[in-house]
């Protein structure tokens, strides 16, 4: 076996590890060491662009490794390794690819922000890579303990990143809040694992599944309590109502590119494990947990959309909109079908690029200091930078689900899955929430294209002559907004993915359809 076997204490066997199966994660973790090593060995501080380039290269290498794995899985079938605690199936590899893409885009966008804010050093990128490896492990974990470890690897760097802008108190507040509630939810999650283990005698997902398939537990209180706690733990991570309280504060306080990264990555990783644990492991108990997910999804959809209406801060608004999106992903989970899983996976892919791009724009508008996030900051943006306004409009409309964007197909796909599982009411609730959500997306678009001055009396009461007076235009911020090249590149990728796969959806849809679980 491995050379380490001899070092193991008697009775503890080191399982066989297929390192090629773990290559994407290993590349990321190795990359972290390279980054830190380079940073330690260079006498002077390197510009942030150097680290960004290295991060992109590392993530690209992970992407290549993931795509190789994808080919292997498609050609030779799925397999497990590390004593069945790591699954290498279409579903896992799909998320490996997604996480690699998120890392690439986030590194590109982040570098522009860090340069503007004068935050040097490799830590940001190193933390992002560690977090990314955690998300990858979440997707491929096949054991509850392993999921817990991956969850911590995913989360802890994000806590640090949320507080990355040390000069801003809100950033620190966000970090503490995220950390405390995150630790709390982890504790709940571990408790859930313990109860499930107590009821089934295993932490390994296929073993639990097999146990439940072959045994009827008559007094299943412990098991159901465990499942309930797992749902709570996951709901915290993916920000489902009513476990979403941390989201608006953390999204608002964290440095803006971190918010985008966190939103994309934590949702992808969290939902990957959520889907695997519930759809692949507990399908036999669906009668018990499906209604709970139904209620969670409905609450998340409606709650996110309605509370977002009241927000004046764009980051908070996008935080609630991301809660609304989480509701849509939950719909795919609620279906408990292969189609539902594929729909959720598609949604997460589409969402990742929309949210990364959206927060990148918010970061640009936030200007140096990352403070200008009130809706008023967007008034007349089209005059200051027409391209940026167009890009943001596309991203917001995509989030609203307008056709010929990935956002539309994402919603369509989950609705189709939901209707396929005969959850008609949930589909109607979802589309109603989408209709509500249109309002706050469009409000930003309106402001960007508005040439009217801010007026407390508002346009409803003061008709005024057409065209308006020249003197009233002074409150609109003037001067062009400068978009750094790296952020422009990141935005181009985000919008490109959103539009290209909206017009030509076939490849991405096929990709998700092949992203299925291994069925033991």
């Amino acid at each position, binding site marked *: 076996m491995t050379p380490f076997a001899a070092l193991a204490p008697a009775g503890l066997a080191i399982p066989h590890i297929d390192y090629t199966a773990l290559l994407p994660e290993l590349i990321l973790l190795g990359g972290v060491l390279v980054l830190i090593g380079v940073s330690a060995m260079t006498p002077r501080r390197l510009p942030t662009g150097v680290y960004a380039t290295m991060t992109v290269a590392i993530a690209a290498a992970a992407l290549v490794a993931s795509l190789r794995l994808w080919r292997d899985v498609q050609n030779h079938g799925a397999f497990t390794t590390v004593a069945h605690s790591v699954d290498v199936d279409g579903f896992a590899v799909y998320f490996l690819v997604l996480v690699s893409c998120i890392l690439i885009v986030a590194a590109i966008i982040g570098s522009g922000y860090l340069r503007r804010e004068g935050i040097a050093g490799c830590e940001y990128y190193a933390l992002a890579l560690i977090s990314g490896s955690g998300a990858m492990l979440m997707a491929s974990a096949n054991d509850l303990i392993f999921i817990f470890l991956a969850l911590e690897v995913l989360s802890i760097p994000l806590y640090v990143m949320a507080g990355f802008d040390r000069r801003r108190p809100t950033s620190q507040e966000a970090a503490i809040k995220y950390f405390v509630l995150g630790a709390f939810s982890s504790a709940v999650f571990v408790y859930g694992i313990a109860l499930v283990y107590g009821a089934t005698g295993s932490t390994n997902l296929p073993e639990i599944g097999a146990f439940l398939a072959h045994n009827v537990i008559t007094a299943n209180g412990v098991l159901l309590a465990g499942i309930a706690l797992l749902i709570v733990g996951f709901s915290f991570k993916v920000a489902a109502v009513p476990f979403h309280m941390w989201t608006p504060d953390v999204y608002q306080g964290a440095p803006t590119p971190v918010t985008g990264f966190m939103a994309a990555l934590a949702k992808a990783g969290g939902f990957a494990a959520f889907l695997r644990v519930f759809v692949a492991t507990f399908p036999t108990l669906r009668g018990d947990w499906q209604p709970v997910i139904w209620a969670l999804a409905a609450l998340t959809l409606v709650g996110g959309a309605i509370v977002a209406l009241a927000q004046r801060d764009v980051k908070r608004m996008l935080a609630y909109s991301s809660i609304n999106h989480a509701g849509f992903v939950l719909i795919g989970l609620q279906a408990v079908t292969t189609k539902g899983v594929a729909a959720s996976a598609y949604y997460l892919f589409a969402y990742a690029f929309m949210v990364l791009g959206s927060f990148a724009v918010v970061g640009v508008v936030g200007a140096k200091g990352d403070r200008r996030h009130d809706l008023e900051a967007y008034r007349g943006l089209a005059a200051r930078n027409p391209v940026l306004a167009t890009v943001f409009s596309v991203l917001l409309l995509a989030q609203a689900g307008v*056709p010929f964007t990935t956002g539309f197909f994402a919603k369509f796909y989950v609705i189709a899955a939901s*209707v396929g599982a005969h959850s008609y009411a949930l589909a109607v609730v979802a589309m109603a929430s989408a*209709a509500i959500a249109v309002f706050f997306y469009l409000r930003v678009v309106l402001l960007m294209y*508005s040439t009217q001055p801010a007026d407390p009396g508002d346009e409803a009461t003061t008709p005024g002559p057409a065209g308006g007076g020249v003197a009233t235009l002074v409150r609109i911020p003037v001067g062009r907004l400068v978009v750094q090249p790296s952020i422009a590149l990141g935005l181009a990728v985000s919008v490109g993915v959103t539009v290209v796969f909206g017009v030509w959806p076939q490849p991405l849809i096929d990709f998700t359809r092949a992203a299925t679980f291994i069925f033991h």
Partner: protein
Amino acid sequence: MSAHAVAVGLGAVAGQRAFPFLTALVLTPVGAALVALVLPRRAVWAIRAVGVAGALAVLGIAAAVLDEFRAGFGGYQMVSVHPWVGSLGISWSLGIDGISLFLVLLSALLFLLALAGAGERTNVKSFTIWILLLEAACLGSFCSLDVLLFFLFFETTLVPVYFIIVGWGHEKRNHAAMKFFIYTFTGSAMMLVGIVALVSIHAGQTGVTTFDIRQLVQTHLSGTAGVLLLLAFTAAFAVKAPIFPFHTWSPDAYREAPVAGSVLMAGVTAKLGTYGIVRFDLGLFPHATVVLAPVFLTLGVAGIVYGAIVAAVQKDLKRLVAYSSLAHIGFIVIGAFALTGESVSGAVLQMVNHGLITAALFLLVAMIYRRRQTMNVAHLGGLQRRAPVMAATFAVVVLASIGVPGLNGFVGEFLILAGTFLTHRWWAVVAVAGVVLAAVYLLWAYQQIFHGPERESERDKPFRDLTWREGAVLAPLIVLIVAMGVYPRPVLDRITPSVDQLITHVEQVAHPNIPRVGQPEPTTHTEVAK
């Protein structure tokens, strides 16, 4: 650059029989929009030229489609099917029949007039691009045989209209645009669920996941499922058309939009709603349509009466036209739900008529506004002496709108009322009252504007008669209003076979036990599908 767009159009005309006319129809405006996109912002003249050339090319292709169209045949023609998202059963399926043919022609004409007649000075580039994209979306909706493709185009129309209102509208444009978008988005959100549910039921019955309407019409639906699906679909169409009481967005949106926006919204995108009712409600849910027909007939009649009464008290000309438009849509709705051959043919014809008439009215109102900066009827008066040609044009349009024989409005309304009278007498009786009311408010407005006393303060201001360019924009509309009133036969010859086939389908599904003698077998759809 503009030559490119024209070349596409000419290529279409000169092409072989197998030329994908409908695909060219949908993609030509997109191509023109892309050309306009790469032109510099300052090249206003070139951008306008590209826009008009693109719209002209579309009209050329539409004319070729009319030429290719086989009259007397009820099925879909010029069908072209390409897989698009094969794994989900979505395809790029376009086809045309008597129901959609004239709506395509109407759209092609109105978009050209809107682009040629629009006086927008600011940001011409964005304006032209939005109008062209809207044209593509509207034409795509009318030609789609794939329900999801229809939905995509249908939904896409929101974005250009929204930006047209926001960018070039009147004072309360933001409010109006928001209201418009949210109302229509909510309606179509329900339709999306309905589409998915229908396809899911169809897949359960046949094992084939497809969005092709030609296959979906064969789905067997239980009574409740049919009614729920019909309601889900109609949510979208009722808001879009708009049907009373889902109309509250429309007076605001029509009022605040720039003239091109009002013309295209009332003339074309509103027709997406009524077209959807005829094509999808009747075609896909015949049984539920029969069950719910009294409800929709009542709403239609309510719209006619309500629209007419509210129009009568409007001071604002544009709002007046908006409410009169609501009344006219009421006629189309009762025609569609009366479910007789005459009434549905009348409804389809009236969609075209209403498009021509409302477009002309909105254009005329805009021309008055351009001269006087007011749309308030009370501030206008005595314009007949200063602008006799404009007054005469206005009179013709008003008379057509009222439904005076010899003009196109009469033919449509007569067919609708005659057909409705056969099956739903009392609704037809009340609807006739709407015709009388329309005469009241439209003639009153006409009288006030052109023959009423001129206000003291306005007496010294000049008022030009129609300019050459304005006349050129209005002329095609007036010619068609008169021509279709005097000789509607060629139009009806093309509409009727498709409508008859639809009605036969509705009756067969809704009343399967009644034996029918002498009814022709419905023409197989696949006959022309290559």
